[in-house]
């Protein structure tokens, strides 16, 4: 895509001209992430997280490929092969910690990216496809992260695999055969470990492919911005390069500092100690918990404690857990407010921050033992989670009186109301 005023690729060097005539790859890059892509001039730091997510995927793929050179996907030696990486492979400890911490940081930046989209209405027309593809990426990430956590074949790997594949066992009639088919056996074992390794290696490349579609779909209407109003003319945009490459470069530096602090000084803080105990099918850990990035959904799963109308609680929990993500695919049609940015939607904004708090509470409960008061709190929080998207948002988007929008991005910028901070419009 491009606005009419976008810079045109005009290679000066004869070699680049020669290449461009035969394979216009430099042109593609120039138009996608170079000076040929005009971007609103008022993006705030929350717009850094798309690039950061891509960087995190890059880190995962590079470290992951190196780990795969030393890892052995066999139930008998998988655990020891990871320890071999930690002890005997040159800088193996760094590669493994970079990969394990990198997974957490990938999810951190993706969650911030998603919540940025939720607040600024980035899912609304004409960017629905960007949102839908983003959700596909997120689902693929969850699958990849889960299978990656199984590979060290520690206690949490094994029992996490057992619990998560057990969810499919809740499906009526065909549940148990499906579970057996997924695992290649009646319980997680070598067959499951091998296929998880194979898929864990495959899916990141699928993610990379969907990211290309995600960016492609984004470039049709162009990037949104904190005011949520459309670009009206050349004065509203700056070329992606050098303006946003420079800003993303700074953002990447901050990201890497935080990531490396964790990697080098608290590499095990986000993991569970039980995963340093080799998998043992005969000994169940006291509390089976998934990695932190699944905790909100794990809390929803466990919030269903009573059978209703003969439907088992476990099945209800599984359906609710999957619905909690799948319903987000309908979000562009649930929130029909013509105003995109939360900065101009006072009622929406309050509920948005309630949702953020709600998801944090769900996460906390999901990481806690399945006992009171955590179950009751997660029931309340899960009820709000569903109500927020399925009931409150549609009503709010119809009822609320939005604040007056600026006439253009440039006008907002010149009046100092670029929406660059989340709270600008509270005073406005």
């Amino acid at each position: 895509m491009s606005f009419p005023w976008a810079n045109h690729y005009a290679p000066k060097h004869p070699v680049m001209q020669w290449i461009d005539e035969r394979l216009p790859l430099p042109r593609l890059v120039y138009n996608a992430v170079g000076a040929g892509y005009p971007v609103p001039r008022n993006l705030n730091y929350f717009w850094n997280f798309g690039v950061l997510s891509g960087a995190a995927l890059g880190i995962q793929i590079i470290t992951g490929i190196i780990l795969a050179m030393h890892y052995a996907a066999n139930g008998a030696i998988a655990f020891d092969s990871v320890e071999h990486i930690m002890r005997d492979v040159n800088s193996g400890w760094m590669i493994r910690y970079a990969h394990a911490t990198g997974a957490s940081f990938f999810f951190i930046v993706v969650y911030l990216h998603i919540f940025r989209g939720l607040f600024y209405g980035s899912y609304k027309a004409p960017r629905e496809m960007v949102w839908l593809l983003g959700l596909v990426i997120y689902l693929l990430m969850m699958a990849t992260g889960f299978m990656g956590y199984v590979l060290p074949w520690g206690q949490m790997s094994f029992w996490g695999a057992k619990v998560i594949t057990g969810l499919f066992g809740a499906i009526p009639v065909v549940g148990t055969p499906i579970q057996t088919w997924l695992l290649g056996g009646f319980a997680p074992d070598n067959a499951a470990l091998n296929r998880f390794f194979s898929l864990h290696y495959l899916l990141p490349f699928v993610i990379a492919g969907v990211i290309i579609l995600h960016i492609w779909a984004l470039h049709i209407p162009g990037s949104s911005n904190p005011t949520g109003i459309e670009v009206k003319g050349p004065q509203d945009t700056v070329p992606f390069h050098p303006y946003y490459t420079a800003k993303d470069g700074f953002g990447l530096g901050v990201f890497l500092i935080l990531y490396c602090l964790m990697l080098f000084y608290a590499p095990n803080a986000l993991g569970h100690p039980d995963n340093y105990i080799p998998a043992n099918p005969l000994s169940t850990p006291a509390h089976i918990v998934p990695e932190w990035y699944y905790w909100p959904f794990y809390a929803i799963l466990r919030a269903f404690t009573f059978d209703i109308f003969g439907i088992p609680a476990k099945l209800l929990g599984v359906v609710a857990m999957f619905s909690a993500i799948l319903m987000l695919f309908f979000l562009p049609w649930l929130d029909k407010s013509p105003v995109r940015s939360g900065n101009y939607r006072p009622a929406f904004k309050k509920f948005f921050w309630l949702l953020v708090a709600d998801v944090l509470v769900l996460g906390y409960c999901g990481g806690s033992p399945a006992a009171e008061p955590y179950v009751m709190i997660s029931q309340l929080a899960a009820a709000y989670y569903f109500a927020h998207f399925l009931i409150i948002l549609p009503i709010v988007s119809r009822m609320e009186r939005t604040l007056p929008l600026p006439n253009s991005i440039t006008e907002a910028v010149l009046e100092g109301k670029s929406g660059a901070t989340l709270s600008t419009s509270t005073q406005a």
Partner: protein
Amino acid sequence: MVRPIAFLVGLGFAGILLYSLIMGAAAYISEPPAPTAEHEFHLHPKEVHFASDGPFGKFDRQQLQRGFQVYKEVCSACHSLHQVAFRDLQDLGFSEAEVKAIAKGWATEVPSINPDTGEAATRKGTPADKIPAPYANEVAARAANNNALPPDLSLMTKARHDGPAYVYSLLTGYQPQPAELLKKFPDSKTPPSLHYNPYFANLNIAMPPPLAADGQVTYADGTKSTVDQMAKDVAAFLVWTAEPKLEARHRAGLAVIIFLLIATTLAYLSYRNIWAGVKH
């Protein structure tokens, strides 16, 4: 069409959850969960510090050698150290010759085969060998320990919450069962084959107190071997077995962070420079 359906689905999920909440709350009030001895008497690990703590932490090699001595003379009778090879001990400051001697003189020999007959045999250890386990297999270990399995210690300090402090607390935490506990939970008397230890998850551990008396080990460096000292030393040693590259990690981290701080400052300045003429 989407929104009415969504409304009903949302109402359904929220309704079921609120119903579950009310039912759960009613059950909780009518039948509050009974208190357990584990819940009330289990203690978090004691506060203890090691030279390897903190972002600039380094190993105290003298202490690691003492800890190794405790492992060798006490723990290794029952606990394996599966991930550690004799050659790794050079990290503790032992010379190559000393490591060779340690490997050769190890109480358990390394499983091998008789080169003439092919029958199972054992041989002396070499620096390349992993430290041999005291028992041939799990069955043998259980048979010798009243059906309890002494866990491998290689990763122990990473496999428990607050691992180093946990090891230290467990080793120094043996005590008679409090009378208060027996009064409150008469059924929770420690069985005769187990030992009361409030730092152990279920309070009753199969391992008898391994460090029973001061002076149990005679330290080569002349340090007074109190139970507290031995427990601290062996915990420090197990920090090393679990994370032998800890020093390299701390060192590399410092260099990486300094580099990133400089690079990020430069990136920030170039960002400001490029945007200088553009109001945003």
